[in-house]
């Protein structure tokens, strides 16, 4: 009898919790205009970065203080599934009002008509935009985005472990090998399929750094001899066990911050993130010492969701962000990255980060990590290439066969 009473009370309590959940859940989020104030959301994976995330949130607060009719809040979309989540939401006519995309997702979204044209919303003629990165944001004369962050790839190295940075590929491999001992690794890069986008970013530097490219603008060139050379270099380093195999980017970046990794190829945004993890780490930056001075760049445009009911409010935020003072602040938050407009590095930031000119000097030779001529198909091509390269890393197939297979599969995809 007692047991029955206990069970009933449990059922009653559970039911109350369930009903409460339903009632609570029934209240949907506030959205759009509220008492004359347009509330917009801004999704950027950068909000989750240590060091940069909290500063970016403060930057948004500065916007909110400066406005009486528009208020922006950061939409929390986790980085690991950022593109997939936001594209699903946008594809169904929902999602954040403003989005900071990486290039592959930007191309896919603008090709699918999910991104609002900005020509009537932002008069870019008023601003001195950086031409090299900006050119990739205009499709057939229609502007789909403004650069939020442009960040060139360079070689980060632990200055305590490596007093003089390598300047050739041979020195690079020799340094990686000599440093790898005990719990210290000479190098780190992404090498698992779980980090598909990251592997693509990493192998991009090897392919372009050895004179290769993914396409000639009209046809895919995935299995070209130069690509094979670059990816063989990537595989050789993997086979030499100079990297912490199996470690994901979160882990090996933390290892770099703790002095357990000697070198890493990364973009300018990494400067603030690394200092955020270990302010005492002595590190520096040099150009990637591969045979050809050509490397990837993270171009991250800010776009307005075509489905947004507050496009004008979203454009207000972009116009505010493009103001010179706010561009300077944004650049300082983002670290060694560039922003949309031409800005001057302050003396204070040059003193604090003397290698900033290294990044700036790479702008002309940096390319967005997309397949030129097949921009909107980049995510699909990326999947095919990464899957095959990883299969070669794991010894399931030789690298040449893997690239031939990738070429064939990707060509089928883009037909």
């Amino acid at each position: 009898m007692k047991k029955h009473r206990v069970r009933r009370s449990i059922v009653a309590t559970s039911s109350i919790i369930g009903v409460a959940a339903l009632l609570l859940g029934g209240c949907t989020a506030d959205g759009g205009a509220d008492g004359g104030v347009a509330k917009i959301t801004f999704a950027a994976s950068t909000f989750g970065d240590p060091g940069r995330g909290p500063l970016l949130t403060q930057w948004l607060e500065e916007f909110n203080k400066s406005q009486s009719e528009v208020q922006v809040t950061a939409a929390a979309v986790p980085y690991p599934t950022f593109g997939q989540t936001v594209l699903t939401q946008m594809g169904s006519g929902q999602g954040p009002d403003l989005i900071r995309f990486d290039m592959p997702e930007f191309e896919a979204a603008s090709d699918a008509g999910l991104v609002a044209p900005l020509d009537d919303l932002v008069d870019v003629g008023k601003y001195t935009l950086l031409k090299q990165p900006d050119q990739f944001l205009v499709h057939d004369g229609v502007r789909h985005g403004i650069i939020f962050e442009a960040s060139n790839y360079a070689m980060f190295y632990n200055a305590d472990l490596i007093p003089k940075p390598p300047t050739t590929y041979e020195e690079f491999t020799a340094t990686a090998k000599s440093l790898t001992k005990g719990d210290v690794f000479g190098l780190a890069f992404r090498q698992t399929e779980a980090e598909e986008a990251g592997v693509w970013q990493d192998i991009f530097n090897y392919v372009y750094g050895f004179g290769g490219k993914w396409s000639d603008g009209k046809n895919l060139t995935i299995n070209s001899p130069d690509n094979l050379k670059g990816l063989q270099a990537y595989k050789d380093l993997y086979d030499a066990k100079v990297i912490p195999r199996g470690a994901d980017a979160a882990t090996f970046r933390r290892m770099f911050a703790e002095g357990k990794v000697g070198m890493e190829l990364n973009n300018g945004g990494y400067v603030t993130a690394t200092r955020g993890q270990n302010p005492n780490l002595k590190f520096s930056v040099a150009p990637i010492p591969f045979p050809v001075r050509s490397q990837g760049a993270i171009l991250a445009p800010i776009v307005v969701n075509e489905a947004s009911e507050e496009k004008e409010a979203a454009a207000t935020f972009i116009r505010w962000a493009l103001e010179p003072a706010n561009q300077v602040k944004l650049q300082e938050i983002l670290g060694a990255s560039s922003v949309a407009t031409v800005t001057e590095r302050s003396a204070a930031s040059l003193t604090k980060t003397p290698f900033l000119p290294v990044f700036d000097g790479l702008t002309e030779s940096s390319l967005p990590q997309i397949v030129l001529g097949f921009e909107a198909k980049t995510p699909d091509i990326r999947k095919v290439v990464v899957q095959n390269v990883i299969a070669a890393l794991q010894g399931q197939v030789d690298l040449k066969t893997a690239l031939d297979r990738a070429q064939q599969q990707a060509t089928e995809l883009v037909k």
Partner: protein
Amino acid sequence: MRRLRIGLTLRIVAVLVVLGVAAFPLYWMLVTALSSNADLFAERPRLLPDFSQLGVFVEGLGDGKVAGWLLNSLLIAAGTTVLSIGLGIPLGYALSRFSFRGKALLTLVLLFTQMLPEALMVVPLFSLFRRFNLLDSLGGLILANVAFVLPIVALILKGAIDGIPRELEEAARVDGARPLAVLTRVNVPLIAPSIAATAVISFFHAWNEYVFAVTFIFTPEKQPASVGIANFIGELGTPIQTVMAVAFMFTLPAVAFYLFAQKYVVAGMTAGAVKG
């Protein structure tokens, strides 16, 4: 006698091994959360937690975000459990006891839904939820989870009801019990262990669910812990100790619920065992 002792020792060792395998991830999360930066990547990993690092838990709970995520997870998991069992019992009963046209097909369709990956359902469910204004609400998320877990709950309960002799129901009817009373007073107590088992399945599914939650919920304050934890993973860095501390806290309510439900599974299985 000696053989018995060896057998007992082997059994104890086997239980300890299984226990170790099951508990080790939880323990390792705790050790990682309580590791200093220097210990985190040391060549010889630290095997015991460093309790001087307990501050990481305070840090994790600091701004109240984590508590909010855990509360949301609790509401979603409890709502999913109550609703899926509430709907699963009559559905399982109908499948077990009534004959109707298309019953075999319906059972097959229910089974088929379990073969679909969640990711495949996201886009159609998103469009549907948008039409019914269920996006960005915990209620909507509960419904999505129930839709996914209800078939398996119903099928398990059907199997349990199949095992109850019909004579018991007939006897209750002879005593004047109405159909609802037959279900709630005769069948439900007899299938209590199965209900407890399905409660565990429903609760765990909703507690761990990520794909629907990350897509359907936009407001940070409404996110469950499964999504909240993923927010710590940044593009350029991840606070590993904090993630592990929050993940450790995230596992505890689920473990507590399992221990609570397990008692009823065992109680149900042994109920009546001593009656003549």
